[in-house]
């Protein structure tokens, strides 16, 4: 058995190994196939789990459980979604269960749900009350200073963005993680997170608006 699986062609180990061949490898019990899948997705899975679960060690646990779930479910996986979507859906399900338990133990009343997602306004009140033109910017939108090529600045901007993402409500954080950090398209994101297209877009909008605000504050403080 082992011999057969290790005889897979070298091309199959390229980083861009297609989902189909990965799936075949996994079903054959090919360890390198599994290692490849782990390399490819583990980091993003942890990132996604952290959207729901506060305690980093718990999020790690969620992902390890999810991997077990992947192995157990492999035989029954019918390919109705992509392998990636299916794997990440398993992460989301485990993360939600764990987050609920975590919320109870820390007595958060509203771990996630629409209320948590929509509590805060996206702009300060008064942002669009230009005296001569109501509904227009009250204050000019300030430029963000120096070029994106400035390496130190860029590292700090990245840190500011990371912090802003961490402060988002769970589902917004999950959406922006898949869409903008991982670069998924809308359809797959909806599929993995179980959201309608419109809801996904609303959450993405809120998340991006908030992260931009955080960068604005960063540049404002920095570049004044």
């Amino acid at each position, binding site marked *: 058995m082992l011999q057969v699986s290790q005889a897979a062609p070298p091309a199959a180990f390229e980083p861009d190994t297609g989902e189909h061949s990965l799936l075949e490898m996994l079903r054959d019990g090919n*360890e390198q196939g599994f290692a490849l899948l782990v390399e490819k997705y583990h980091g993003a899975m942890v990132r996604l789990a952290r959207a729901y679960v506060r305690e980093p060690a718990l999020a790690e646990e969620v992902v390890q459980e999810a991997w077990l779930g992947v192995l157990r479910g492999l035989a029954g996986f019918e390919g109705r979604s992509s392998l990636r979507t299916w794997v990440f859906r398993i992460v989301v399900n485990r993360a939600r269960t764990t987050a609920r338990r975590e919320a109870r133990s820390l007595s958060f009343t509203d771990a996630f749900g629409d209320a948590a997602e929509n509590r805060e306004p996206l702009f300060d009140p008064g942002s669009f009350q230009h005296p001569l033109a109501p509904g*227009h910017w009250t204050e000019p939108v300030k430029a963000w200073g120096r070029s994106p090529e400035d390496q130190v600045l860029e590292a700090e901007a990245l840190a500011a*963005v990371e912090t802003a993402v961490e402060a988002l409500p769970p589902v917004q954080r999950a959406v922006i993680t898949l869409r*903008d950090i991982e670069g998924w398209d809308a359809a797959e994101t909806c599929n993995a997170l179980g959201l309608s297209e419109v809801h996904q877009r609303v959450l993405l909008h809120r998340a991006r608006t908030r992260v931009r605000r955080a960068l604005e504050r960063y540049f404002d403080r920095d570049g004044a």
Partner: protein
Amino acid sequence: MNPLNELTCLELVDLVTEYFEGALAVAQRARFEAHLEQCRHCRRYVEQLRRTISTLGELKAEEIPRHVRDELLKTFRGWKRRG
């Protein structure tokens, strides 16, 4: 264009994600772009959002710690044996 039909900045910032996603109806898209053309603040805002999105894309996933990877591969071997 009929001035009553023009977007305000407030409306524009609300529509920007739909604009990026290609989800605006043709007429609404035209109003969006007409506003952008004449409002440098909104142009700057939209530009900043694009930069926000590209900065998000630069966040790296943490690399998987060696021991976690090894543990997972061990799990895999166990799964295969039971398989």
